[in-house]
């Protein structure tokens, strides 16, 4: 239980811009998973996870909703669209945009103690 981090700290580490659900930034997560493949994300059998992805479409949010993912970091300066924001707000999913690559974001957060799933 030691390696929980708040989304606020996580967003800081990846120079992230918080797009929605700012009121939930003190939520903490323990695990992170990086993928552009939503079928892969849907196999993750853990609660309290953060998703790092380069994909920006509505299915990223739907997948997060089904998988109980409470924060998505969109890497490499990709911009989330309005439909994504609306659906994320509806489901209390925090969206963060980061200028860095998936590799960079993953490396930072791994170094800071977030755990991998596999």
């Amino acid at each position: 239980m030691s390696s929980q981090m708040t989304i606020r700290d996580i967003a800081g580490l990846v120079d992230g811009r918080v797009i929605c659900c700012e009121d939930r930034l003190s939520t903490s997560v323990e695990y992170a998973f990086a993928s552009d493949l939503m079928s892969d994300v849907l196999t993750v059998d853990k609660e309290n996870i953060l998703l790092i992805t380069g994909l920006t479409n509505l299915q990223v949010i739907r997948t997060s909703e089904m998988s109980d993912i409470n924060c998505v970091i969109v890497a490499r300066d990709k911009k989330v669209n309005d439909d994504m924001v609306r659906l994320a707000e509806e489901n209390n999913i925090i969206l963060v945009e980061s200028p860095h690559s998936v590799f960079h974001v993953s490396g930072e957060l791994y170094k800071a103690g977030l755990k991998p799933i596999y």
Partner: protein
Amino acid sequence: MQIRHKIAGGDFTRAGNVASAVKKILQQLNIDHKQSKRIVIALYEGEVNVVAHAYSGVVDVDIDSEKVRITISDKGPGIKDIEQAMEEGFSTATPQVREMGFGAGMGLSNMKRNSDFMEIRSVPGEGTLVELINYIRPDAS
């Protein structure tokens, strides 16, 4: 309790709407979280399959005291070789489906893993019916 939803083939903006609605119902019914997560993930992959591979579909959800039974039936090309379709990695998905984060050939195996019972029936050229059963009383399976 019986609920029916429609799915429009090809409409990726709405894929997941049915699974989302069912998730809320299962929450209201206080269904065990682990089991309800399995149910909605299996349903979501099934919904995505209708959107990705078929023309239109109907989802029927039937909840009683011991199980949640879901049937997803579609009008579409059907599946010629179900065993092959079940193989992880087999996919006929278009590039457009892949751009959505699906189409890696993992959907049906995800559905199998997340259900207590799954059966697929299909008539090539007509459509496909997937039945999913999950037991919601720990001692009922």
